[in-house]
């Protein structure tokens, strides 16, 4: 028991174990189940926007095809690779702590945060390029290269969906940075790495949303 925690308390409980849980395993399972429930609410949040996309696409497929050409497939693809790689690094960070490798836990977390910043930087240049062309959402749309009814609706959907997704990336950067700082201070061990695990789950969901956003907005 004494090996478990750097700060094991007198009654034999590891420091991370809350009193209302029977043991670490139950605490871990409860946290993880809570995260999955939260992820389902996140999926349904994005689902509302995917429904808006589906309805308008079903009504005006030719408009969506014409408007999607205005998005840069190459940069969208680069961002997809960036997010997939960050998903790998966050998964590897969990594996690192499972096998007790503190050094690679921190390294993988930092890599993930760096990749997340990379994603936002690409997104920044994509957005500013669109604004430069006067491609704004809704009635502010003023691009002369594609003057077609309902194109502004496509860009409303584009900016809202990628915007809310980008906000999730920003939140992920905050959470994973905090986890990285705690990890560098030795807060986690193979016996206790729940925050790394649940933050990782959140980050994978951000990746999954983008896996669908990329083809729907950029490719088809």
């Amino acid at each position, binding site marked *: *028991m004494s090996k*478990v925690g750097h700060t094991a308390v007198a009654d*034999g*409980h*590891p420091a991370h*174990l809350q009193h209302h849980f*029977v*043991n*670490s*395993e139950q605490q*871990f*399972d409860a946290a*993880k*189940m809570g995260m*999955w*429930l939260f*992820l*389902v609410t996140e*999926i*349904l949040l994005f*689902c*509302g926007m*995917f*429904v808006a996309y*589906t*309805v308008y696409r*079903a*009504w005006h497929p030719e408009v969506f095809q014409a408007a999607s050409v205005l998005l840069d*497939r190459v940069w969208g*693809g680069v961002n*997809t*690779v960036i997010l*997939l*790689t960050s*998903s*790998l690094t*966050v*998964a*590897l960070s969990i*594996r690192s702590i*499972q*096998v007790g490798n503190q050094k690679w836990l921190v390294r993988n977390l930092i890599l993930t945060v760096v990749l997340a910043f990379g994603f936002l930087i690409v997104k920044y240049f994509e957005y500013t390029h669109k604004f430069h062309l006067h491609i704004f959402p809704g009635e502010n749309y003023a691009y002369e290269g594609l003057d077609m009814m309902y194109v502004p609706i496509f860009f409303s959907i584009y900016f809202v969906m990628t915007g809310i997704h980008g906000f999730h990336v920003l939140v992920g950067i905050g959470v994973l940075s905090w986890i990285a700082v705690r990890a560098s201070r030795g807060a986690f061990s*193979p*016996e206790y790495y729940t925050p790394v695990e649940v933050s*990782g*789950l959140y980050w*994978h969901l951000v*990746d*999954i949303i983008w*896996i*669908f956003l*990329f*083809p*729907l907005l*950029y*490719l*088809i």
Partner: protein
Amino acid sequence: MDHEKDGHGHHIIPLKVYWAVFGMLIFLTVVTVLSAYVDLGGLNVPLALAIAGVKATLVVLFFMALKYDKKVNVMIFSIGLLFVLVFIGFVLLDTLYRGEFDPILQGTVAEQQVSERALEVRRDSIDVLQGAVDTSGVTQ
């Protein structure tokens, strides 16, 4: 001290599985981008969605380790997906068929029959008047 005895049951996925999944995800990304440059007619959209579905499944099963997770988490996630289908499916039941089932005539069938009969009576009387005008025109 049995608090920690059962704490080592977490499945540790081998490194090569992570790298194989990652390789597959990148491969599928390249395929989906390339397929966008080819006109497959009606197949472009289903293909892109199928590839995205496979990629998401890979992430969920291996990166999120749902394959090795507690069944209750599998159930929570599956119910979430079910509600996604309900959400999209039921909205499309409305928006795809809007207008096709709208009532074209106001009122109940009985009221419609009454107004239809009234219309016929009016039409007949107009015909009679028209005939009267025609015949008077001929005689003049």
